[in-house]
């Protein structure tokens, strides 16, 4: 039986780690922040790469870099993507 994907807060990813922003990942945020983040490129199923963990948490989505405060990154749930071994 396949394991359910593990969801963790974006703030817990390590530098360089990639993850997928899951459906309902932004639900715990106020509506205005959720809409802004989605319009900035952090929509459902988008892939993020952590450029800098901590405060600010800097993530890259496609070619866009977003800086987020720690408390916002704490509330965005993502599914880490296993890095492929060479």
């Amino acid at each position: 039986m396949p394991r359910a994907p593990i969801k963790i807060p974006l703030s817990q990813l390590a530098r360089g780690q990639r993850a997928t922003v899951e459906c309902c990942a932004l639900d715990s945020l106020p509506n205005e922040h959720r809409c802004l983040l989605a319009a900035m490129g952090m929509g459902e199923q988008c892939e993020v790469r952590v450029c800098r963990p901590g405060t600010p948490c800097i993530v890259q989505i496609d070619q866009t870099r977003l800086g987020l405060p720690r408390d916002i990154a704490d509330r965005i749930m993502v599914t880490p993507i296993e890095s492929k071994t060479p």
Partner: protein
Amino acid sequence: MIPRVALLGNPNTGKSTLFNRLCGLRSKTANFPGSTVEHQVGRCVTKSGQELDLIDLPGIYSLVLEMPESKLCSDCLDGRVGDGRPDATLLVLDANNLTRNLQFAASALRRGLPSVVAINMVDLAQRRGLIIDEQAASQALGVPVIAVSARSGQGIDRLIEQLTRTATSSSIPNPDQPLPNSEPGSTASAIWAATVFARIAAHPDEKKVDGMTIHDRLDAAFTHPLLGIVLFAIMMSLLFASIYWLAQFPMNAVDGIFGWFGSGITSLMPAGTLRDLMVNGIVGGVSATVVFLPQILLLFFLLALLEDSGYLARAAFAVDRTMRRFGLPGQAFMPLLSSHACALPGIMATRLIPNQRDRLATILVAPFMSCSARVPVYALLTGVLFADRPLAAGFAFTGCYVVGGIAGLGTAALLRKTILRGPSTPMMLELPDYRIPSIRNALTVALDRGMLFLKNAGSVILAIAIVMWWMSAYPKSTPTPESVALEMRAVEIAPTDPSAAADLRIQVSRIDERTQQNGSFAGQLGSIVQPAFAPIGLDRQLTVAVLTSFLAREVFTTTVFVLAGAGSNAEGEDSGTLETVRSATRDDGLPLFTMATSAALLIFFVLAMQCLPTLVVVARETGSWRWPLLQFCYMTAIAYTAAFLVYRFMS
């Protein structure tokens, strides 16, 4: 009728650079009636002579967000503001962020206006190996698509040609597949954008980066809690020093030119009221306005360079944590720091702050920062206070800056907990790519800000300067018997001892200046309000000096020199002048500057809102006289209380 074209796009798409490329200097900052959100308007003239009016709307991520900028753009497209619906839109997309930008373009195209899409920064994209098919993009979006580089000028001529054709036609978007019926960021919109991207762009060499890139390393350094602050401090010191140092040359030139102009008028016109008005009122007033321009131009030029380089967004994060303790966002640091040169450009720079409450709090506390106009006052008073103790004078001088800073930040914390209470907007910022800033763009921004200052604040400052001149110059006093006697003595000895006669004439002019100052309306007003300043140790003469310094703080030193009999051209750094000021007396014969009076005045000038031009700019920036009035009352009350306590303690 000249066709009107609205420029729309996400932030950091190079939209304003493209606007500046299309309009050059034929542009200005404007507001729609009832809105405080700014936009640029300009005119683009094609090679064939066709004119287009361009409206550069603020960069937004979506037309439906609950933000003033989004609402303004939406209202403009629907014709709810301005002169009805624009004839066309120019949608500016970043070639390097196409999937997100396409989603925004789709939502704008759904409004049904004739449109042209400019895919900007295509040169950067090509360097990354991205190839964009204009033809396929035109088919997918149903409007003409032109790949351009606003910086290098690539594709601009084709864009202007196409824009002219579209703006004078009524062709509505006709995509070959339906546009998503949802806003940017939704799943449907993202899927549509991914499909279109796959059709119009090819990225044969794309590789996923797993390690740290140079961008990551720079971001980590610039936003590091310690290193980021250190780098920011270095950068700001350089910026601040450049403004301080570089601005002195044009400021001296402005002084020189207006001085020369005033002398010219003096020699050409017969003596009288009209000449006085021309030289001291109008030329003096224009000079008092224009003298602020160099600092404003320099600050906005350097800020535009820093913003364009991509550094400013990172710096805002570096100082955000510290500033949040005082209820202010990271973006408030820069305006507060620039206020140390002059509060006017500092207050104008608060437009970088997105949240209205944060911006208002920053505007209200900016004048607490010790500006360059306070420096001569600090130099004079610390010199008087600590005669022959330069080290103590130096500490006191530094202390003035510290006290001002603490009062400002403390007030900001107080404001955010009281009248400006409300949630702070967490800083969620897009960090633009690092790049070499465009000098051309920075020059356009600086010139625009300079013109805006002259237009909005300049006329009011000029009017105030003329009123202040009139109050100091009228009614005309008759020479005192002492002055007449000295003048006669000078005439007598002139043939035998010309140098002694010249000295006597200098004394005569100082006595006349002092008599005029005391007898003028400003002097009379000083006598009336003096009882209010008595508790902080000011006599009638010093009250006049404080009142006249309301136009500009540095006027205080000139007035004090005149009162002390050192002449209006005396220099504060001159030890002889300082000695004269120290030994000056009141009408009753007691010393004018006691330790207690000097200390009280010093703290008063650190904290008081003694600057009419700042009040005018605050009124312009906040759109109401309510805030500058509150600011004036609050700062005066704080300054008065502090001066009173210091005076009592030292007495």
